């Protein structure tokens, strides 16, 4: 079981008290429902009828709830706190599909996107190669960067058109809400910390009403909506457009990467000793997501994905229990039965949403940087990460570049997350060329064992992207082994130091001509250190067997092979 970090109150497998569980679940569900604005934008842009819009929204909410339940429950999903929101990556796909042939085309394209996502989970070994920790780190960082534009636009009250001016009231509301969330998350304890985001949002909402930023729902429509009603779902039929097919496949890939980013963020947040992404856990979450995406597709809804904003809430509240997600999923399902509730949530003031998004963005950016720096970085890896981040920033700050690309490619190119991750994956694969997984250096009696081991292992660690702590632990153990073999004369004057890396193990073999050393199972007396060479070698053999994760004695041809394994 992972070791719980100090800042986490309720870890993934822990049970918060029932009241806390309920209120945290409602908090997450409420935040998720606020993002119903995305399918609303798609419906408005496409000019959907009131009934079609109702179907789009209701189906989306129901399957957000279903997906949250499936993803959080350990038997069907990941056992992590993953709360769904409408999938922003589907916005361009929905708008293009509606323009090409209406809701029926969007059904087919959503199914294709879901199948694309699903098919990626069949290649988890390849995913491991494609997404080492520093590449996951780029994806997580860019998840945060991608939130910057929509959050800052809302916080400053800037319109979509160029040259629009900031609104002081928005700034007051958003920064007050942000300050409340941050202060409560950092300085408070108990209930105040658990509800930091809800309290900050409430303070912001009241301030928005006071300053006139809050928008009242359209009274004519709002008054006709029932408090409780059966959800309306539909079967829009199937339509197809070859022109939109590439966008559908790309949307599936983007969604999988997005899901991977949120899963890795939660894994990292929940485990003080996190080493690498658990791809099987990620695959279970993605599969659960695709099942619900197919459900929402055939019932005329808008696809969802796990929320990066919810990660910020989990961090602020110190609660990552999957049971919170179960409550959230149920609350979302219940909310689908209340059209009036949904309508009232869609008018949450924009600067309040902006503040919550910015808080999440700040967390994700730093979490991604931590992932990137968890490994040793060679020049190749530095450029892989650097160029990938810059590529994402390029499309974020120079949207005119995207507008000059082919129309089918624009959905992927306008996403900093997609561009950065794609560049990182490609450069990572290109820069693997010429790197062997085994390397060796000769060591003679004239060499200093520690300096030789340090220079060789650090160089290889950089090239292979090994964990810093593993290399740091291996150096003194290998140096001790080399020193003993040469100084005691067990090795005939010189030896070969060979390192091998395969992501789960870092092995260092010392190949020499001479006798094998003895590895006692019980600790010899320290007095042996004052004895003859054989006694010293036996004492050191015992120490090596305890300090390495595994010590193997064998033969390679005519030479002895002393292999020290360090788990990675």
């Amino acid at each position, binding site marked *: 079981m992972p070791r719980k970090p100090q800042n986490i109150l309720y870890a993934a497998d822990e049970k918060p008290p029932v009241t806390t569980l309920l209120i945290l679940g409602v908090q997450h569900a409420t935040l998720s429902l606020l993002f119903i604005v995305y399918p609303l934008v798609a419906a408005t842009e496409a000019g959907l009828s009131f009934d079609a819009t109702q179907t789009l929204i209701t189906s989306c909410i129901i399957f957000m709830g279903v997906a949250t339940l499936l993803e959080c429950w350990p038997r069907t999903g990941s056992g992590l706190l993953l709360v769904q929101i409408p999938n922003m990556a589907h916005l361009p796909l929905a708008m293009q599909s509606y323009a090409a042939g209406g809701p029926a085309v969007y059904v087919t394209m959503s199914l294709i996107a879901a199948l694309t996502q699903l098919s990626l989970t069949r290649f988890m070994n390849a995913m491991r190669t494609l997404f080492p920790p520093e590449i996951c780190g780029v994806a997580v960082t860019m998840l945060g960067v991608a939130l910057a534009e929509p959050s800052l636009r809302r916080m400053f009250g800037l319109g979509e058109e160029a040259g629009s001016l900031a609104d002081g009231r928005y700034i007051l509301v958003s920064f007050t809400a942000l300050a409340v969330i941050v202060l409560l998350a950092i300085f408070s304890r108990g209930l105040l910390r658990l509800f930091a985001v809800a309290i900050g949002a409430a303070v912001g909402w009241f301030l928005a009403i006071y300053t006139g930023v809050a928008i009242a729902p359209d009274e004519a429509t709002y008054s006709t909506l029932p408090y409780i009603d059966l959800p309306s779902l539909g079967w829009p039929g199937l339509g197809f457009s070859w022109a939109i097919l590439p966008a559908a496949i790309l949307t599936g890939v983007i969604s999988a990467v997005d899901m991977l980013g949120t899963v890795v963020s939660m894994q990292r947040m929940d485990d003080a000793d996190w080493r690498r992404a658990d791809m099987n856990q990620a695959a279970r979450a993605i599969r659960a997501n695709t099942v619900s995406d197919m459900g929402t597709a055939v019932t005329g809804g808008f696809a969802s994905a796990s929320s990066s904003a919810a990660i910020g809430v989990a961090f602020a509240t110190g609660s990552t229990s999957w049971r919170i997600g179960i409550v959230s999923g149920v609350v979302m399902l219940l909310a689908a039965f209340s059209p009036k509730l949904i309508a009232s949530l869609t008018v949450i003031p924009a600067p309040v949403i902006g503040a919550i998004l910015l808080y999440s963005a700040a967390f994700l950016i730093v979490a991604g940087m931590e992932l990137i720096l968890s490994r040793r970085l060679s020049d190749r890896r530095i450029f892989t990460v650097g160029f990938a981040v810059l590529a994402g920033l390029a499309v974020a700050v120079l949207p005119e570049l995207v507008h000059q690309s082919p129309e089918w490619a624009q959905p992927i190119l306008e996403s900093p997350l997609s561009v950065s991750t794609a560049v990182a994956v490609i450069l990572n694969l290109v820069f693997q060329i010429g790197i062997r997984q085994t390397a060796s250096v000769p060591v003679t009696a004239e060499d*200093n*064992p*520690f300096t030789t081991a340090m220079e060789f292992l650090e160089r290889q660690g950089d090239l292979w992207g090994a964990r810093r702590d593993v290399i*740091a*632990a291996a150096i*003194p153990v290998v*140096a*001790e082994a080399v*020193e*003993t073999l040469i*100084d005691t004369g067990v090795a005939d004057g010189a030896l070969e130091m060979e390192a091998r890396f395969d992501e789960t193990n870092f092995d260092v073999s010392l190949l020499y001509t001479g006798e094998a050393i003895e590895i006692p199972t019980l*600790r010899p*007396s*320290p*007095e042996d*250190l*004052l004895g003859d060479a054989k006694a*010293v070698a036996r*004492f*050191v053999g015992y*120490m090596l067997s*305890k*300090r390495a994760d595994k010590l193997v004695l064998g033969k390679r041809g005519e030479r002895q092979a002393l292999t020290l394994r360090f788990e990675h």
Partner: protein
Amino acid sequence: MQIDRFIEQDVIITTVKGRLDSSSSHKLDDFLAEIPAGNNAILLDFAELTYISSAGLRVVLKATKLARSHGVALAICSLVPQVHEVFDVSGFTTLIPIHPDRGAALASFA
């Protein structure tokens, strides 16, 4: 490797900075080969010792035996975690008093 020696509260304190391996351990061996008269304890302050090999352990063991043969107490203090691990695994922690810092070590001699 850098070795310094001074006296505080009648305790001979030897500090070692850097790595203690087969190429450098003879220097410490020379330092510890004699027990100066008039002092009742020896303290090895390893706060800045970053690495110790079996050759270094051998020197520490020799110094301990020499001190005991002269009726002088010897202790070690301020081990960094990676060096502390070597003392633990080798069993030296049961042979030689090890203190978390210099203050605690000096207090133990009082």
